[in-house]
């Protein structure tokens, strides 16, 4: 499948940088264009790692929630048990992975007060903090993409 997704993103960033950017004179538009090019560069590097990240995030969040079950109220316990029992479907379906990840993180957000309250008598708190730390390390995107450093102007042959 050529050009690949990575090659397409790389090519689009190149066109914007080499064809469009030199023609853009307005300072605001030029700065925003630099941001767009930086974001495309970031996507080029990160997009292929997203499914693996989602799978890891889902498995890790499920582990924290499983550890937290004993300290949770009945309704939250039931919701988490039902979702975890309903195994993830096609792991190549990004949309399905994103939906499951969001659902699990929503349940974790609701579980936080109980996990915090029982930090001394359950290992759920330690697991949750470890998850948050690992997640920050593994997250595929940086907070804000930087425009690439400007290349020297091409010289005429």
């Amino acid at each position: 499948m050529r050009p690949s997704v990575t090659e397409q993103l790389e090519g689009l960033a190149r066109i914007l940088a080499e064809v469009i950017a030199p023609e853009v004179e307005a300072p605001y538009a030029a700065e925003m264009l630099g941001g767009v090019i930086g974001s495309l560069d970031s996507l080029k590097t990160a997009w292929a790692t997203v499914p693996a990240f989602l799978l890891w995030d889902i498995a890790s969040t499920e582990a924290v929630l499983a550890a937290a079950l004993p300290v949770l109220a009945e309704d939250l316990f039931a919701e988490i048990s039902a979702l975890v029992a309903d195994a993830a479907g096609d792991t190549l379906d990004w949309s399905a992975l994103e939906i499951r990840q969001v659902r699990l993180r929503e349940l974790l957000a609701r579980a936080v007060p109980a996990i915090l309250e029982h930090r001394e008598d359950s290992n759920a708190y330690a697991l949750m903090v470890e998850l948050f730390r690992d997640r920050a390390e593994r997250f595929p995107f940086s907070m804000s993409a930087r425009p690439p450093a400007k290349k020297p102007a091409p010289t005429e042959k």
Partner: protein
Amino acid sequence: MNEDIAERLRSWLAEELDDPAVRIEGMRRTSVGYSRENWVFDACWKADGQDRMGAFIARRDPTGSVLDTDRRVEFAVLLALSNSHVPVPKVRWLDAQGTRLGRPSIIMDLADGVCDYLALNGKRPAGRRLAIAHQLCDRLADIHGLDWRAQGLGAVLDDPGPRAPIVALDHWQSELRRVQLEPEPELELVLAWLRGHAPANPVTTLVHGDFKPGNVLMQGDDVTLVLDWETAHLGDPLEDIGWVTNPLRAGEHRIAGLWEPAQYIERWCRRTGFTADATAIHWWNVLANLKQAITVLTGARSFVDGRFDRVLHSPVVIYRLLLQLIES
């Protein structure tokens, strides 16, 4: 776009300056600041038979940004401070309803000077940078030392009293609820920690809310004006101290080995006469990073809604720091 704004500005100024022939020259949009749309321009008009010229800056609410604030409050605060010892830009006109430029806007005099967000860590020798750091600290202390009641700010801003930390926390929690695109369990943990450790506020002062080298104007090595008052409010002065000692922004606020949080706090206490409780400052450090994270999430929301021109992702780097802070 610029032509449309220029004509709208011209029409607004023609009315304010009472000269239908007023001209706008050299107008350009600046990208300084993530939260407002700024245009700088010169205006030429006649008054009392004399040719006049002035340099101005128009600040308009964007359709989307990293921060949602109220131009009326910003204008009223700047007006109230105009006769105080806190140096602020001169505000000229307010369009609170957005009838002039399409969205709420303020026009101010464009003052000479530069914004240098890395003034404390740029190319100047260390001694000069330290002198700038002292000025910044003194300007912040002056803001906190202001008699806000005498300046009429009590009519503009609510006094949260001893509950200032909880009021600030409630505000940012509601902002999070308003903008979040997805669940953020990391921030739920931080919110719960903050609520469980909130200090009481011993004194109410004016709080700038975003004090930093990039929000002052400098001429040479002199700090001449304090800018960007859109987040100003009444509250605990330690909120600003927690902001300027935030480890996330150390590159802007510190000079390694010379100007660390201890030096900042010591000088600030001496100038204001206030005491600074270390536990309370730590709490405000955590809140500062919560604010930073929610600001990024606001930008992400605005981008997804098609109202902001930069892509922002989950601020996991801030989450990591927040975890360190609440675990320490």
